[in-house]
Protein backbone atom coordinates (compact mmCIF):
# COMPACT_ATOMS: atom_id res chain seq x y z
CA UNK A 1 0.00 0.00 0.00
CA UNK A 2 1.33 3.47 -0.78
CA UNK A 3 2.62 5.35 2.23
CA UNK A 4 0.13 8.19 1.98
CA UNK A 5 -2.89 5.91 1.88
CA UNK A 6 -1.63 3.90 4.84
CA UNK A 7 -1.04 7.08 6.81
CA UNK A 8 -4.49 8.44 5.94
CA UNK A 9 -6.16 5.21 7.01
CA UNK A 10 -4.17 5.32 10.26
CA UNK A 11 -5.97 8.54 11.19
CA UNK A 12 -9.36 6.79 11.30
CA UNK A 13 -8.79 4.66 14.45
CA UNK A 14 -7.09 7.62 16.15
CA UNK A 15 -10.12 9.83 15.58
CA UNK A 16 -12.38 6.99 16.63
CA UNK A 17 -10.56 6.46 19.95
CA UNK A 18 -10.45 10.21 20.60
CA UNK A 19 -14.19 10.60 20.10
CA UNK A 20 -14.86 7.54 22.22
CA UNK A 21 -12.83 9.04 25.08
CA UNK A 22 -14.72 12.34 24.83
CA UNK A 23 -18.07 10.52 24.79
CA UNK A 24 -17.11 8.34 27.75
CA UNK A 25 -15.74 11.22 29.85
CA UNK A 26 -18.81 13.39 29.29
CA UNK A 27 -21.12 10.58 30.46
CA UNK A 28 -19.84 11.38 33.94
CA UNK A 29 -20.74 15.04 33.86
CA UNK A 30 -22.89 15.69 36.94
CA UNK A 31 -26.47 16.82 36.52
CA UNK A 32 -29.31 15.63 34.32
CA UNK A 33 -28.60 16.67 30.70
CA UNK A 34 -32.28 17.39 30.20
CA UNK A 35 -32.33 19.87 33.08
CA UNK A 36 -29.11 21.41 31.76
CA UNK A 37 -30.65 21.68 28.29
CA UNK A 38 -33.76 23.33 29.71
CA UNK A 39 -31.52 25.79 31.51
CA UNK A 40 -32.90 24.98 34.96
CA UNK A 41 -36.39 26.32 34.25
CA UNK A 42 -39.13 24.25 35.88
CA UNK A 43 -40.94 22.09 33.33
CA UNK A 44 -43.83 19.65 33.25
CA UNK A 45 -43.17 15.92 32.97
CA UNK A 46 -44.34 15.97 29.40
CA UNK A 47 -41.89 18.70 28.39
CA UNK A 48 -39.09 16.78 30.10
CA UNK A 49 -40.10 13.57 28.32
CA UNK A 50 -40.18 15.31 24.96
CA UNK A 51 -36.84 16.96 25.55
CA UNK A 52 -35.33 13.62 26.58
CA UNK A 53 -36.59 12.05 23.36
CA UNK A 54 -35.36 15.00 21.29
CA UNK A 55 -31.85 14.67 22.76
CA UNK A 56 -31.99 10.92 22.15
CA UNK A 57 -31.43 10.20 25.83
CA UNK A 58 -34.33 7.75 26.03
CA UNK A 59 -32.42 5.26 23.93
CA UNK A 60 -29.89 2.73 25.31
CA UNK A 61 -26.34 3.93 25.79
CA UNK A 62 -24.80 1.93 22.93
CA UNK A 63 -27.30 3.48 20.51
CA UNK A 64 -26.47 6.93 21.84
CA UNK A 65 -22.80 6.14 21.32
CA UNK A 66 -23.28 5.02 17.71
CA UNK A 67 -25.42 8.08 16.98
CA UNK A 68 -22.70 10.25 18.52
CA UNK A 69 -19.99 8.67 16.35
CA UNK A 70 -22.09 9.02 13.20
CA UNK A 71 -22.85 12.66 13.95
CA UNK A 72 -19.21 13.50 14.69
CA UNK A 73 -18.07 11.80 11.48
CA UNK A 74 -20.53 13.85 9.43
CA UNK A 75 -19.57 17.09 11.16
CA UNK A 76 -22.82 17.43 13.10
CA UNK A 77 -21.65 18.64 16.51
CA UNK A 78 -25.11 19.09 18.00
CA UNK A 79 -26.87 22.17 19.35
CA UNK A 80 -25.64 24.40 22.17
CA UNK A 81 -27.81 24.42 25.31
CA UNK A 82 -27.12 28.07 26.03
CA UNK A 83 -27.00 29.70 22.61
CA UNK A 84 -29.57 27.37 20.97
CA UNK A 85 -27.49 27.31 17.78
CA UNK A 86 -25.60 24.55 16.00
CA UNK A 87 -22.23 24.04 17.73
CA UNK A 88 -20.53 23.79 14.34
CA UNK A 89 -21.76 27.26 13.41
CA UNK A 90 -20.67 28.75 16.75
CA UNK A 91 -17.20 27.25 16.29
CA UNK A 92 -17.00 28.49 12.70
CA UNK A 93 -17.86 32.01 13.88
CA UNK A 94 -15.16 32.05 16.55
CA UNK A 95 -12.49 30.21 14.55
CA UNK A 96 -11.12 33.24 12.63
CA UNK A 97 -10.31 35.03 15.92
CA UNK A 98 -8.35 32.04 17.22
CA UNK A 99 -6.73 31.32 13.87
CA UNK A 100 -5.42 34.90 13.64
CA UNK A 101 -3.95 34.62 17.14
CA UNK A 102 -2.42 31.22 16.39
CA UNK A 103 -0.89 32.50 13.15
CA UNK A 104 0.53 35.58 14.85
CA UNK A 105 1.90 33.52 17.73
CA UNK A 106 3.40 30.98 15.36
CA UNK A 107 5.12 33.73 13.37
CA UNK A 108 6.67 35.32 16.47
CA UNK A 109 7.57 31.92 17.93
CA UNK A 110 9.21 30.70 14.72
CA UNK A 111 11.27 33.85 14.14
CA UNK A 112 12.46 34.02 17.75
CA UNK A 113 12.92 30.27 18.16
CA UNK A 114 14.87 29.73 14.93
CA UNK A 115 17.05 32.82 15.39
CA UNK A 116 17.92 32.02 19.00
CA UNK A 117 18.39 28.31 18.26
CA UNK A 118 20.90 28.95 15.46
CA UNK A 119 22.64 31.68 17.43
CA UNK A 120 23.15 29.25 20.31
CA UNK A 121 23.83 26.13 18.25
CA UNK A 122 26.63 27.25 15.93
CA UNK A 123 29.00 27.76 18.87
CA UNK A 124 27.84 25.39 21.60
CA UNK A 125 28.90 26.21 25.18
CA UNK A 126 30.07 29.70 24.21
CA UNK A 127 28.70 32.83 25.88
CA UNK A 128 26.02 33.25 23.21
CA UNK A 129 24.84 29.71 23.84
CA UNK A 130 24.71 30.14 27.61
CA UNK A 131 22.88 33.45 27.33
CA UNK A 132 20.38 32.17 24.77
CA UNK A 133 19.63 28.97 26.64
CA UNK A 134 19.07 30.94 29.85
CA UNK A 135 16.59 33.06 27.89
CA UNK A 136 14.89 29.91 26.60
CA UNK A 137 14.59 28.56 30.13
CA UNK A 138 13.04 31.84 31.24
CA UNK A 139 10.70 31.60 28.24
CA UNK A 140 9.33 28.17 29.20
CA UNK A 141 9.03 29.20 32.87
CA UNK A 142 7.08 32.41 32.29
CA UNK A 143 3.38 32.11 33.05
CA UNK A 144 1.97 33.28 29.72
CA UNK A 145 -0.98 34.98 31.39
CA UNK A 146 1.41 37.00 33.53
CA UNK A 147 3.68 38.00 30.67
CA UNK A 148 0.55 38.99 28.71
CA UNK A 149 -0.54 41.29 31.50
CA UNK A 150 2.96 42.73 31.86
CA UNK A 151 3.03 43.46 28.12
CA UNK A 152 -0.33 45.20 28.37
CA UNK A 153 0.87 47.21 31.34
CA UNK A 154 4.25 48.24 29.89
CA UNK A 155 3.39 48.77 26.20
CA UNK A 156 -0.31 49.51 26.45
CA UNK A 157 -0.75 51.48 29.64
CA UNK A 158 2.66 53.00 30.41
CA UNK A 159 4.10 53.64 26.94
CA UNK A 160 0.82 53.60 24.99
CA UNK A 161 2.59 52.17 21.93
CA UNK A 162 -0.09 49.67 20.99
CA UNK A 163 -3.82 49.44 21.51
CA UNK A 164 -4.92 46.93 24.14
CA UNK A 165 -8.39 46.18 22.84
CA UNK A 166 -9.97 46.05 19.41
CA UNK A 167 -10.16 43.76 16.42
CA UNK A 168 -7.54 45.39 14.18
CA UNK A 169 -4.20 43.91 13.23
CA UNK A 170 -2.31 46.13 15.70
CA UNK A 171 -4.43 44.77 18.56
CA UNK A 172 -2.98 41.40 17.61
CA UNK A 173 0.64 42.40 18.31
CA UNK A 174 0.79 41.85 22.07
CA UNK A 175 -1.31 38.66 22.08
CA UNK A 176 0.92 37.24 19.31
CA UNK A 177 4.04 38.02 21.32
CA UNK A 178 2.48 36.37 24.38
CA UNK A 179 1.74 33.16 22.48
CA UNK A 180 5.02 33.38 20.54
CA UNK A 181 7.21 33.62 23.65
CA UNK A 182 5.48 30.51 24.91
CA UNK A 183 6.54 28.62 21.75
CA UNK A 184 9.98 30.16 21.24
CA UNK A 185 11.63 28.68 24.34
CA UNK A 186 11.00 25.05 23.43
CA UNK A 187 11.68 25.65 19.76
CA UNK A 188 15.03 27.37 20.42
CA UNK A 189 16.25 24.45 22.56
CA UNK A 190 15.29 21.94 19.90
CA UNK A 191 16.84 23.87 16.99
CA UNK A 192 20.01 24.34 19.01
CA UNK A 193 20.53 20.61 19.55
CA UNK A 194 19.58 19.84 15.95
CA UNK A 195 22.12 22.41 14.69
CA UNK A 196 24.85 21.07 17.00
CA UNK A 197 24.25 17.58 15.69
CA UNK A 198 24.27 18.52 11.99
CA UNK A 199 27.29 20.82 12.35
CA UNK A 200 29.41 17.82 13.34
CA UNK A 201 28.46 15.86 10.19
CA UNK A 202 30.97 15.06 7.46
CA UNK A 203 29.14 17.04 4.77
CA UNK A 204 29.48 20.19 6.88
CA UNK A 205 33.25 19.62 7.06
CA UNK A 206 33.22 19.13 3.30
CA UNK A 207 31.37 22.41 2.89
CA UNK A 208 33.98 24.11 5.10
CA UNK A 209 36.76 22.51 3.04
CA UNK A 210 35.19 23.80 -0.16
CA UNK A 211 35.62 27.27 1.33
CA UNK A 212 31.94 28.16 1.58
CA UNK A 213 31.00 31.10 3.78
CA UNK A 214 29.83 30.36 7.29
CA UNK A 215 26.42 31.88 6.51
CA UNK A 216 25.99 29.68 3.45
CA UNK A 217 26.94 26.57 5.39
CA UNK A 218 24.40 27.24 8.12
CA UNK A 219 21.65 28.51 5.84
CA UNK A 220 21.91 25.94 3.05
CA UNK A 221 23.58 22.86 4.45
CA UNK A 222 22.89 22.74 8.16
CA UNK A 223 19.40 24.25 8.37
CA UNK A 224 17.85 21.95 5.82
CA UNK A 225 18.95 18.92 7.80
CA UNK A 226 18.39 20.41 11.22
CA UNK A 227 14.82 21.38 10.44
CA UNK A 228 13.19 17.95 10.76
CA UNK A 229 13.08 17.56 14.57
CA UNK A 230 11.80 21.12 15.09
CA UNK A 231 9.04 20.50 12.55
CA UNK A 232 7.93 17.52 14.63
CA UNK A 233 7.98 19.71 17.71
CA UNK A 234 5.85 22.23 15.88
CA UNK A 235 3.19 19.56 15.45
CA UNK A 236 3.26 18.88 19.17
CA UNK A 237 3.33 22.61 19.85
CA UNK A 238 0.11 23.02 17.93
CA UNK A 239 -1.55 21.50 20.97
CA UNK A 240 0.10 24.10 23.16
CA UNK A 241 -0.88 26.77 20.68
CA UNK A 242 -4.49 25.86 21.40
CA UNK A 243 -3.79 25.82 25.13
CA UNK A 244 -1.87 29.09 24.97
CA UNK A 245 -4.78 30.61 23.09
CA UNK A 246 -7.19 29.70 25.89
CA UNK A 247 -5.12 31.72 28.36
CA UNK A 248 -4.11 34.55 26.03
CA UNK A 249 -7.67 35.14 24.90
CA UNK A 250 -8.71 35.59 28.50
CA UNK A 251 -5.85 37.97 29.31
CA UNK A 252 -6.60 40.18 26.32
CA UNK A 253 -10.38 39.75 26.61
CA UNK A 254 -10.42 38.44 23.05
CA UNK A 255 -13.11 36.35 21.42
CA UNK A 256 -12.19 32.88 20.23
CA UNK A 257 -12.39 29.16 20.84
CA UNK A 258 -10.59 29.35 24.20
CA UNK A 259 -13.01 31.88 25.64
CA UNK A 260 -15.85 29.78 24.24
CA UNK A 261 -14.51 26.63 25.95
CA UNK A 262 -14.23 28.29 29.37
CA UNK A 263 -17.75 29.71 29.08
CA UNK A 264 -19.08 26.33 27.97
CA UNK A 265 -17.51 24.60 30.97
CA UNK A 266 -18.74 27.19 33.46
CA UNK A 267 -22.31 27.09 32.07
CA UNK A 268 -22.26 23.27 31.73
CA UNK A 269 -23.09 23.55 28.05
CA UNK A 270 -22.27 19.90 27.34
CA UNK A 271 -22.72 19.85 23.53
CA UNK A 272 -20.49 22.92 23.21
CA UNK A 273 -17.75 21.43 25.45
CA UNK A 274 -18.00 18.18 23.53
CA UNK A 275 -17.94 19.90 20.14
CA UNK A 276 -14.95 22.08 21.06
CA UNK A 277 -12.90 19.18 22.42
CA UNK A 278 -13.73 17.01 19.42
CA UNK A 279 -12.87 19.89 17.10
CA UNK A 280 -9.52 20.81 18.70
CA UNK A 281 -8.29 17.23 19.07
CA UNK A 282 -9.33 16.33 15.52
CA UNK A 283 -7.59 19.45 14.24
CA UNK A 284 -4.47 18.41 16.15
CA UNK A 285 -4.52 14.94 14.59
CA UNK A 286 -4.93 16.37 11.11
CA UNK A 287 -2.21 19.00 11.58
CA UNK A 288 0.19 16.26 12.60
CA UNK A 289 -0.79 14.26 9.53
CA UNK A 290 0.02 17.27 7.35
CA UNK A 291 3.35 17.72 9.13
CA UNK A 292 4.18 14.07 8.52
CA UNK A 293 3.53 14.65 4.84
CA UNK A 294 5.73 17.73 4.97
CA UNK A 295 8.78 15.66 5.99
CA UNK A 296 8.88 14.12 2.54
CA UNK A 297 8.86 17.57 0.95
CA UNK A 298 11.70 18.80 3.15
CA UNK A 299 13.85 15.67 3.15
CA UNK A 300 14.42 13.69 -0.07
CA UNK A 301 15.81 10.78 1.98
CA UNK A 302 12.46 10.31 3.70
CA UNK A 303 10.66 10.63 0.36
CA UNK A 304 12.83 7.85 -1.04
CA UNK A 305 12.24 5.61 1.96
CA UNK A 306 8.48 5.98 1.62
CA UNK A 307 8.30 5.34 -2.10
Amino acid at each position, binding site marked *: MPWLLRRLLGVV*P*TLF*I*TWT*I*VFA*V*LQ*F*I*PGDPVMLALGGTPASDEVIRNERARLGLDRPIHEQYLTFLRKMATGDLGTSYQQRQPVARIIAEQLPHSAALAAGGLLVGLILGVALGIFAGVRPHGWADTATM*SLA*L*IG*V*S*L*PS*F*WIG*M*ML*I*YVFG*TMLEWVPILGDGIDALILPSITVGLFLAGGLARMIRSAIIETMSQDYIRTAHAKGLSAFRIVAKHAMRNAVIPPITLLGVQF*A*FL*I*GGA*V*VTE*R*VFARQGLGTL*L*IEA*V*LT*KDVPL*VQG*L*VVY*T*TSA*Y*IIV*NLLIDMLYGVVDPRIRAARA
Partner: protein
Amino acid sequence: MSAAIALLPPRSNLARVLGTPGAAAGVAVLILLVLGAVFAPLIAPFDPVATRVCPRLAPPSAANLFGCDLFGRDILSRILHGGRYSLSVGLLTVAISLIAGTLIGMTIAFLGGRVDSIGTRFIDVMLGFPPIVLAILIVAVLGVGAFNAALAVGISGVPRFARVVRSATLSLVGREFVESARAVGASQGRILRRHLLPNLVPVLIVLASLDLGTAILSTATLSFLGLGAQPPTPEWGAMLNAGREFMRYAPWTMIFPGLVLFLAVMSVNLVGDRLSHVLDPRASGHV
Protein backbone atom coordinates in the same frame (compact mmCIF):
# COMPACT_ATOMS: atom_id res chain seq x y z
CA MET B 1 22.71 -6.29 44.47
CA SER B 2 20.39 -4.35 42.29
CA ALA B 3 21.75 -2.62 39.24
CA ALA B 4 20.13 0.60 40.42
CA ILE B 5 23.26 1.44 42.35
CA ALA B 6 25.26 1.37 39.17
CA LEU B 7 22.79 3.73 37.51
CA LEU B 8 22.61 6.22 40.33
CA PRO B 9 25.59 8.53 40.58
CA PRO B 10 27.75 8.10 43.66
CA ARG B 11 26.55 10.03 46.71
CA SER B 12 29.46 12.48 46.58
CA ASN B 13 28.09 13.62 43.25
CA LEU B 14 25.12 15.14 45.00
CA ALA B 15 27.31 18.23 45.11
CA ARG B 16 27.26 18.16 41.33
CA VAL B 17 23.55 18.92 41.41
CA LEU B 18 24.50 22.29 42.83
CA GLY B 19 27.47 22.49 40.49
CA THR B 20 26.22 25.26 38.21
CA PRO B 21 25.35 28.81 39.24
CA GLY B 22 21.89 28.37 37.73
CA ALA B 23 21.07 25.24 39.70
CA ALA B 24 22.48 26.72 42.91
CA ALA B 25 20.36 29.83 42.42
CA GLY B 26 17.35 27.60 41.69
CA VAL B 27 17.86 25.63 44.90
CA ALA B 28 18.32 28.84 46.91
CA VAL B 29 15.13 30.45 45.56
CA LEU B 30 13.24 27.20 46.03
CA ILE B 31 14.34 26.91 49.66
CA LEU B 32 13.26 30.50 50.28
CA LEU B 33 9.86 29.90 48.71
CA VAL B 34 9.32 26.66 50.62
CA LEU B 35 10.37 28.27 53.92
CA GLY B 36 8.06 31.21 53.17
CA ALA B 37 5.17 28.83 52.53
CA VAL B 38 5.84 26.59 55.54
CA PHE B 39 6.26 29.44 58.00
CA ALA B 40 3.64 31.70 56.39
CA PRO B 41 1.41 31.76 59.49
CA LEU B 42 4.38 32.96 61.56
CA ILE B 43 6.05 35.45 59.22
CA ALA B 44 3.13 36.87 57.23
CA PRO B 45 2.47 40.37 58.57
CA PHE B 46 -1.31 40.07 58.16
CA ASP B 47 -4.09 37.51 57.91
CA PRO B 48 -4.22 36.56 54.20
CA VAL B 49 -8.02 36.67 53.98
CA ALA B 50 -8.67 39.53 56.42
CA THR B 51 -10.09 42.50 54.52
CA ARG B 52 -9.47 46.17 55.25
CA VAL B 53 -6.08 45.65 56.89
CA CYS B 54 -4.96 48.45 54.57
CA PRO B 55 -6.59 50.94 52.16
CA ARG B 56 -8.09 49.34 49.03
CA LEU B 57 -5.63 49.01 46.15
CA ALA B 58 -3.01 50.88 48.18
CA PRO B 59 0.39 50.92 46.43
CA PRO B 60 3.41 49.16 47.97
CA SER B 61 4.63 50.89 51.13
CA ALA B 62 6.75 50.14 54.19
CA ALA B 63 3.74 48.64 55.97
CA ASN B 64 2.51 46.66 52.95
CA LEU B 65 5.58 45.80 50.90
CA PHE B 66 3.65 44.40 47.92
CA GLY B 67 0.65 46.72 48.24
CA CYS B 68 -2.99 45.85 48.81
CA ASP B 69 -5.75 44.32 46.71
CA LEU B 70 -9.31 45.47 46.04
CA PHE B 71 -10.60 44.25 49.41
CA GLY B 72 -7.77 45.86 51.37
CA ARG B 73 -5.93 42.57 51.90
CA ASP B 74 -2.15 42.54 52.26
CA ILE B 75 -0.68 41.06 49.05
CA LEU B 76 2.60 39.92 50.64
CA SER B 77 0.69 37.91 53.26
CA ARG B 78 -1.48 36.41 50.55
CA ILE B 79 1.54 35.45 48.44
CA LEU B 80 3.25 33.76 51.42
CA HIS B 81 0.11 31.78 52.21
CA GLY B 82 -0.52 31.19 48.52
CA GLY B 83 2.77 29.30 48.35
CA ARG B 84 1.24 26.67 50.60
CA TYR B 85 -1.47 26.04 48.00
CA SER B 86 0.52 26.45 44.82
CA LEU B 87 3.53 24.34 45.88
CA SER B 88 1.59 21.53 47.57
CA VAL B 89 -0.93 21.39 44.72
CA GLY B 90 2.01 21.14 42.29
CA LEU B 91 3.47 18.22 44.26
CA LEU B 92 0.10 16.50 44.48
CA THR B 93 -0.37 16.87 40.74
CA VAL B 94 3.03 15.36 39.93
CA ALA B 95 2.41 12.55 42.41
CA ILE B 96 -0.83 11.65 40.62
CA SER B 97 0.80 11.66 37.17
CA LEU B 98 3.86 9.82 38.46
CA ILE B 99 2.11 7.00 40.30
CA ALA B 100 -0.56 6.34 37.67
CA GLY B 101 1.84 6.82 34.76
CA THR B 102 4.44 4.50 36.27
CA LEU B 103 1.90 1.78 37.00
CA ILE B 104 0.45 1.94 33.49
CA GLY B 105 3.79 2.32 31.67
CA MET B 106 5.50 -0.52 33.54
CA THR B 107 2.55 -2.86 33.25
CA ILE B 108 2.01 -2.54 29.51
CA ALA B 109 5.76 -2.74 28.76
CA PHE B 110 6.17 -5.78 30.98
CA LEU B 111 3.14 -7.65 29.67
CA GLY B 112 4.09 -6.76 26.09
CA GLY B 113 2.33 -8.19 23.03
CA ARG B 114 -1.22 -7.09 22.44
CA VAL B 115 -1.57 -5.27 25.77
CA ASP B 116 1.45 -3.16 24.87
CA SER B 117 0.33 -2.33 21.35
CA ILE B 118 -3.21 -1.40 22.42
CA GLY B 119 -1.95 0.48 25.47
CA THR B 120 0.61 2.41 23.44
CA ARG B 121 -2.01 3.31 20.89
CA PHE B 122 -4.28 4.57 23.63
CA ILE B 123 -1.48 6.61 25.20
CA ASP B 124 -0.61 8.14 21.84
CA VAL B 125 -4.21 9.21 21.35
CA MET B 126 -4.33 10.71 24.86
CA LEU B 127 -1.15 12.64 24.05
CA GLY B 128 -3.11 14.16 21.17
CA PHE B 129 -5.28 16.08 23.62
CA PRO B 130 -3.80 19.50 24.31
CA PRO B 131 -2.98 19.11 28.05
CA ILE B 132 -4.92 22.20 29.09
CA VAL B 133 -7.96 21.14 27.04
CA LEU B 134 -7.85 17.69 28.63
CA ALA B 135 -7.57 19.28 32.08
CA ILE B 136 -10.50 21.62 31.34
CA LEU B 137 -12.56 18.64 30.11
CA ILE B 138 -11.85 16.81 33.38
CA VAL B 139 -12.74 19.92 35.42
CA ALA B 140 -16.01 20.05 33.48
CA VAL B 141 -16.81 16.61 34.87
CA LEU B 142 -15.36 16.96 38.38
CA GLY B 143 -16.49 20.53 38.96
CA VAL B 144 -14.56 23.70 39.73
CA GLY B 145 -12.17 23.80 42.72
CA ALA B 146 -8.53 23.71 43.83
CA PHE B 147 -8.41 19.97 44.50
CA ASN B 148 -10.30 19.08 41.32
CA ALA B 149 -7.97 21.28 39.29
CA ALA B 150 -4.97 19.44 40.75
CA LEU B 151 -6.62 16.12 39.98
CA ALA B 152 -7.39 17.26 36.42
CA VAL B 153 -3.84 18.42 35.72
CA GLY B 154 -2.50 15.25 37.35
CA ILE B 155 -4.66 13.00 35.20
CA SER B 156 -3.82 14.95 32.04
CA GLY B 157 -0.11 14.29 32.76
CA VAL B 158 -0.54 10.51 33.07
CA PRO B 159 -0.07 9.70 29.35
CA ARG B 160 3.22 11.68 29.28
CA PHE B 161 4.63 9.70 32.20
CA ALA B 162 3.24 6.39 30.97
CA ARG B 163 4.94 6.78 27.59
CA VAL B 164 8.39 7.53 29.02
CA VAL B 165 8.13 4.85 31.70
CA ARG B 166 7.01 2.33 29.09
CA SER B 167 10.06 2.86 26.89
CA ALA B 168 12.40 2.93 29.90
CA THR B 169 10.91 -0.36 31.10
CA LEU B 170 11.18 -1.89 27.63
CA SER B 171 14.91 -1.13 27.60
CA LEU B 172 15.25 -3.06 30.87
CA VAL B 173 13.10 -6.17 30.37
CA GLY B 174 15.53 -7.72 27.91
CA ARG B 175 18.54 -7.29 30.23
CA GLU B 176 20.30 -10.20 31.95
CA PHE B 177 19.25 -9.36 35.51
CA VAL B 178 15.59 -9.64 34.53
CA GLU B 179 16.29 -12.89 32.70
CA SER B 180 18.07 -14.32 35.74
CA ALA B 181 15.27 -13.20 38.07
CA ARG B 182 12.88 -15.09 35.81
CA ALA B 183 15.20 -18.07 35.78
CA VAL B 184 15.23 -18.35 39.58
CA GLY B 185 11.44 -18.30 39.50
CA ALA B 186 10.62 -14.80 40.70
CA SER B 187 6.95 -13.89 40.27
CA GLN B 188 5.96 -11.16 37.81
CA GLY B 189 4.97 -8.85 40.62
CA ARG B 190 8.32 -9.38 42.31
CA ILE B 191 10.26 -8.68 39.12
CA LEU B 192 8.29 -5.47 38.60
CA ARG B 193 8.69 -4.31 42.20
CA ARG B 194 12.16 -5.47 43.15
CA HIS B 195 14.06 -5.49 39.87
CA LEU B 196 12.47 -3.07 37.42
CA LEU B 197 11.16 -0.29 39.69
CA PRO B 198 14.50 0.47 41.43
CA ASN B 199 16.15 0.78 38.03
CA LEU B 200 13.52 3.24 36.89
CA VAL B 201 14.09 5.55 39.86
CA PRO B 202 16.59 7.87 38.12
CA VAL B 203 14.24 8.23 35.14
CA LEU B 204 11.31 8.89 37.46
CA ILE B 205 13.21 11.54 39.43
CA VAL B 206 14.16 13.37 36.25
CA LEU B 207 10.65 13.07 34.84
CA ALA B 208 9.00 14.30 38.04
CA SER B 209 11.39 17.20 38.54
CA LEU B 210 11.00 18.34 34.93
CA ASP B 211 7.23 18.08 35.25
CA LEU B 212 6.85 19.91 38.56
CA GLY B 213 7.31 23.34 36.97
CA THR B 214 4.68 22.58 34.34
CA ALA B 215 2.37 21.22 37.03
CA ILE B 216 2.62 24.37 39.17
CA LEU B 217 2.07 26.49 36.07
CA SER B 218 -0.90 24.45 34.82
CA THR B 219 -2.79 24.45 38.11
CA ALA B 220 -2.18 28.19 38.46
CA THR B 221 -3.47 28.56 34.89
CA LEU B 222 -6.71 26.76 35.76
CA SER B 223 -7.15 29.02 38.78
CA PHE B 224 -6.47 32.03 36.58
CA LEU B 225 -9.20 30.82 34.22
CA GLY B 226 -11.58 30.62 37.17
CA LEU B 227 -11.67 26.80 37.11
CA GLY B 228 -9.36 26.10 40.06
CA ALA B 229 -8.97 27.67 43.50
CA GLN B 230 -11.83 30.08 44.19
CA PRO B 231 -11.74 33.44 45.96
CA PRO B 232 -10.89 34.28 48.68
CA THR B 233 -8.29 31.48 48.61
CA PRO B 234 -4.86 33.13 48.36
CA GLU B 235 -3.68 31.03 45.39
CA TRP B 236 -1.24 32.72 42.99
CA GLY B 237 -3.22 32.03 39.80
CA ALA B 238 -6.48 33.13 41.43
CA MET B 239 -4.76 36.30 42.70
CA LEU B 240 -3.59 37.09 39.17
CA ASN B 241 -7.12 36.58 37.91
CA ALA B 242 -8.41 39.05 40.49
CA GLY B 243 -5.63 41.51 39.67
CA ARG B 244 -6.40 41.35 35.95
CA GLU B 245 -9.18 43.90 36.18
CA PHE B 246 -7.24 46.49 38.16
CA MET B 247 -3.86 46.19 36.50
CA ARG B 248 -4.20 49.60 34.92
CA TYR B 249 -4.68 51.39 38.24
CA ALA B 250 -3.03 48.94 40.62
CA PRO B 251 -0.45 46.89 38.68
CA TRP B 252 1.04 45.52 41.92
CA THR B 253 -2.04 43.30 42.28
CA MET B 254 -0.74 41.26 39.35
CA ILE B 255 3.02 42.00 39.22
CA PHE B 256 3.95 40.35 42.53
CA PRO B 257 1.86 37.15 42.42
CA GLY B 258 3.04 36.59 38.84
CA LEU B 259 6.67 37.27 39.71
CA VAL B 260 6.59 34.74 42.55
CA LEU B 261 4.87 32.17 40.34
CA PHE B 262 7.52 32.74 37.67
CA LEU B 263 10.36 32.42 40.22
CA ALA B 264 8.88 29.19 41.58
CA VAL B 265 8.53 27.61 38.14
CA MET B 266 11.93 28.89 37.01
CA SER B 267 13.77 27.56 40.07
CA VAL B 268 12.06 24.18 39.79
CA ASN B 269 13.02 24.05 36.10
CA LEU B 270 16.63 25.01 36.84
CA VAL B 271 16.93 22.22 39.39
CA GLY B 272 15.11 19.77 37.12
CA ASP B 273 17.39 20.61 34.20
CA ARG B 274 20.47 20.05 36.32
CA LEU B 275 19.10 16.82 37.80
CA SER B 276 18.46 15.44 34.33
CA HIS B 277 22.08 16.22 33.37
CA VAL B 278 23.44 14.52 36.48
CA LEU B 279 21.08 11.55 36.53
CA ASP B 280 20.84 10.84 32.81
CA PRO B 281 22.89 7.66 32.43
CA ARG B 282 24.09 8.72 28.99
CA ALA B 283 25.22 12.17 30.13
CA SER B 284 27.06 10.89 33.19
CA GLY B 285 28.87 8.14 31.32
CA HIS B 286 27.29 5.20 33.12
CA VAL B 287 25.76 2.27 31.21
